[in-house]
């Protein structure tokens, strides 16, 4: 089979490979090259070495965005995973109406980031109007607004993943633990959490990546206001490209650094949590 397969490479792989080259491989390589160049279109490229990288740090926008993204990611990842895990524990106890609760809690995840951003801008401004302020008055409103939004969006998704993990914990082990006199907290710490570790790896990976790369929600909820104080990295890069002529190369340099940061964070996170997984 393998030999006759060779003739069919173009048929099976060709279309996907072509689209992958156009959408990803070529832009990715061009992106690396362009981060070392000054350009506004693709015909006026001039080599500038590392000057784009220097300019990326010449004002504080990029560093502030990195800090804002990092603190947002830490806070929202903790909240999302803890709440999702608690809900998953509750919703695997055979309580009546479990399916209805799961359905409702998952629902926000279906709504796109732009629409979510405007829904929460409307609600948060509604609350804040009691105090005569809006979400763009102070960066802390935007920060917590984004945390609430991301919790609302992702808890249901992560809950589903946790539920799948918890349901795979063998009943016999839990019964044995009860017979041996383990209380609920002991069972949770010594049995459920270790056995659900693969799910925790996945949810941490997804929440870290989603939070750190967040764009649509940021654009719709605050658009970075007040000033640029609630601008996350993805939005800062977008603004560097599309609202400052002559800064395209700087935008690309920022994008490359963003890419490296994301790769490092995800690799570190995966290696830490993978180590805690039990090999069955």
């Amino acid at each position, binding site marked *: 089979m393998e030999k006759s397969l060779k003739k069919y490479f173009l*048929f099976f792989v060709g279309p996907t490979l072509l689209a*992958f080259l156009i959408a990803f491989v070529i832009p990715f390589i061009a992106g690396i090259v362009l981060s070392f160049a000054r350009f506004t279109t693709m015909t006026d490229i001039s080599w500038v070495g590392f000057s784009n990288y220097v300019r990326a740090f010449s004002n504080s926008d990029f560093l502030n965005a990195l800090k804002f993204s990092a603190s947002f990611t830490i806070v929202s990842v903790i909240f999302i995973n803890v709440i999702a895990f608690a809900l998953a524990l*509750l919703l695997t106890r055979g309580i009546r109406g479990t399916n209805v609760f799961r359905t409702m809690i998952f*629902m926000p995840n279906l709504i796109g980031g732009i*629409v979510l951003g405007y829904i929460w801008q409307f609600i948060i401004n509604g609350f804040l109007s009691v105090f005569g302020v809006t979400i763009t008055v102070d960066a802390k409103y935007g920060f917590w607004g984004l945390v609430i939004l991301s919790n609302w969006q992702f808890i249901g998704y992560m809950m589903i993943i946790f539920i799948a993990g918890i349901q795979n914990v063998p009943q016999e082990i839990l019964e044995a633990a009860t017979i041996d006199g383990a209380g609920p907290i002991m069972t949770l710490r010594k049995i459920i959490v270790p056995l659900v570790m693969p799910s925790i790896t996945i949810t941490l990976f997804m929440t870290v990546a989603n939070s750190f790369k967040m764009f649509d929600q940021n654009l719709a909820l605050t658009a970075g206001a007040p000033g640029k104080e609630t601008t996350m990295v*993805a939005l800062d890069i977008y603004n560097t490209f599309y609202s400052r002529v002559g800064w395209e190369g700087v935008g690309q340099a920022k994008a490359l650094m963003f890419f490296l940061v994301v790769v490092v964070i995800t690799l570190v996170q995966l290696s830490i949590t993978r180590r805690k997984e039990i090999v069955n």
Partner: protein
Amino acid sequence: MSGIQQQKKPLNAGGIVLILLLCVISLLFITPILLVFLNSFKGKLYVINTPFAFPNAETFTGINNYVSGITATGFPSAFGWSLFITVFSVGIIVLFSAMTAWYITRCTSLFCKVLYFAFVFAMIVPFQMVMFPLTKVANLLHLDNPLGILVLYLGFGAAQSVFLFSGFVKSVPIAVEEAAVIDGCNPITAFFAVIFPMLSPIAITVAILNAMWIWNDFLLPNLIIGSEYRTIPVAVQYLRGGYGSIDWGYMMAMIVLAVIPIIIFYFVCQKHIIQGVTAGSVKG
């Protein structure tokens, strides 16, 4: 499969408290959507001033927000483009990713292995890394239209989809394919008659994950085909006028219209969505 979920609890006092608690929590998740729905029937000033009140005789504007909002945003055309792009992108992603995944899983050449890792790598790369060069490449190749964007969605969607399909292909016994070949199939007929039907559980997962992503995607359609062929997320974003001013009456109505199709989709294939989320995450 003797999971925890099979313990059926008798309904005691503690159980009732838990159910009430879960009712409150679930309501918290639904309330924002309900609030938007209620406010979509209010005049725009009342949306801002009394967001948490029921519409009354003074604030109720009937379906005015919908009628004017639909005209202002060109909603029917946005809906049409969103539907067109989502349906066809998902169609070609499922078809071509399945073909590719099967081929590179069954083929042991170095190139196939490299290609597999390239797809996995692409899943980690943030979109901003390719955003700008991609818009230029798309312009150059005349892909900056609703047909061209299908190619781009295939290129991006292929990464995760090939990954999911190839995980599944590994569990399909190779003997089935060999039997098909002995019965006179070539790889193409074997794939479509025998293999592809066997992949249908994961094909549904792939279709749903991609449909949710593409329907809600803002940045790619905005950058590539932007103002000329607005999709729903792009049309909603364009409601933010110059200087950040927003007509909240239109906004409420448009959000309701944007959310209704997704909620219908959810209730129609809820079982598959939940399964898809779980299956799609197993090997993140």
